[in-house]
């Protein structure tokens, strides 16, 4: 448990379409941006980034780190606020490894049988998400 890099805190919001999942004061957030992971501290320059499936690391002021898996989405960062819009978000500790493995296998099976390109693309995307999820637990 490393001490936070900065003692200054800012607000972190995790918003899903159906509700707000988290809204808290934090010291640092690491976001899996689609152009690469980036860390956010207080007074970060304003940026909007899309995200790939991956893990958001949230460090609260006491230095405790929470890991949240997101299936993709967007991060909107201003100096005092970091908002993450995600369609699916789960705490990494809550991921059931065997269930994900099973799902992944199923999806791969479906991909092998899929005929048209649209279905293939959708399956490929789901597989990428499942793989990222698996990597998050490992």
């Amino acid at each position, binding site marked *: 448990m490393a001490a936070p890099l900065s003692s200054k805190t800012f607000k972190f919001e995790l918003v899903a*379409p*159906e509700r*707000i999942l988290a809204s808290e004061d934090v010291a640092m957030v690491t976001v899996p941006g689609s152009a690469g992971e980036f860390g956010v501290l207080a007074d970060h320059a*304003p940026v*909007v*980034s899309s995200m790939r499936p991956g893990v958001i690391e949230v460090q609260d002021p006491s230095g405790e780190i929470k890991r949240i898996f997101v299936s993709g989405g*967007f991060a*909107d960062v201003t100096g005092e606020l970091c908002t993450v819009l995600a369609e699916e978000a789960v705490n990494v500790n809550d991921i059931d490894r065997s269930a994900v493995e099973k799902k992944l296998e199923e999806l791969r099976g479906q991909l092998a049988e899929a005929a048209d390109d649209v279905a293939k693309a959708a399956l490929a995307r789901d597989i990428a998400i499942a793989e990222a999820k698996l990597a998050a637990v490992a």
Partner: protein
Amino acid sequence: MPSLKEYRNRIASVKSTRKITSAMKMVAASKLRRAQHQAEASQPYATKMFDMLSRLVARINIDTTSPFLLAGTGNQDTHLLIVITSDRGLCGGFNGSIVRKARAQIRELLDEDKEVKIICVGRKGRDVLKREYASKIVHTFEGLGKKRLTFADAMEVSRFIMDMGGRREFDVCHVLFNRFKSVIAQVPTSTQLIPFYVPEKEAAEEAGVHAVYDFEPDEDEILQDLLPRNLSVQIFRALLDSAAGEQAARMTAMDNATRNAGDMINKLTLRYNRARQAYITKELIEIISGAEAV
């Protein structure tokens, strides 16, 4: 004049109707609370996404190379209407008002020689529109959110629309739904989904005035990602509003029905008593005149 027994039977049947309507009212009330709560909870995501999109759109120029979801095809010839109604009836004028609005819009478009395609969400709307515009209905979604509306339901609809858009089967897309204004007022609303309605420049500037944003990877790529999601979100909001409105309309309708049943019972009871009295009087007269005759 109906016999006493007939009155008794009618009173009993109206009473059991009242029991049903008052139970339905209470069920609708509790479902309404849940639906309203859900609609509120989904607000932040929609607002945030709209903010982000407005900021983004303010920074780029819309031209023919812009994504389909943002700029449409550039034509105005084929209109896709998504008509959101409920699957179940007994909710007053809820479905009627939306169908009326849809019909007006369809007629207007047809008068202008535009082509119209319809996607129905909810069985009630389809049943009515089918009579007149069966050939124009391309698809019907039924049983969405039977238990609880989820974002996946909205994605199912938006994916279908995007598939159609990918094949360039329409130019403009509107969604018609009952906007939930309050428990007693649902406003039939028609909102343009595609091309994306660009907010006024000032509004966009207001949203972005705080800071100059960096976009990562870049504006176009985020836009590609953001637009389909925004479509889902808009549809999700329309579905949620409609679901809340349906319960509100049902609650009001059932409340009225319960009250009417009560009035009816009072009236019938009055008539029943009057008939009973007349019957007794008649019997007395018969007995007395019988006794007098002896």
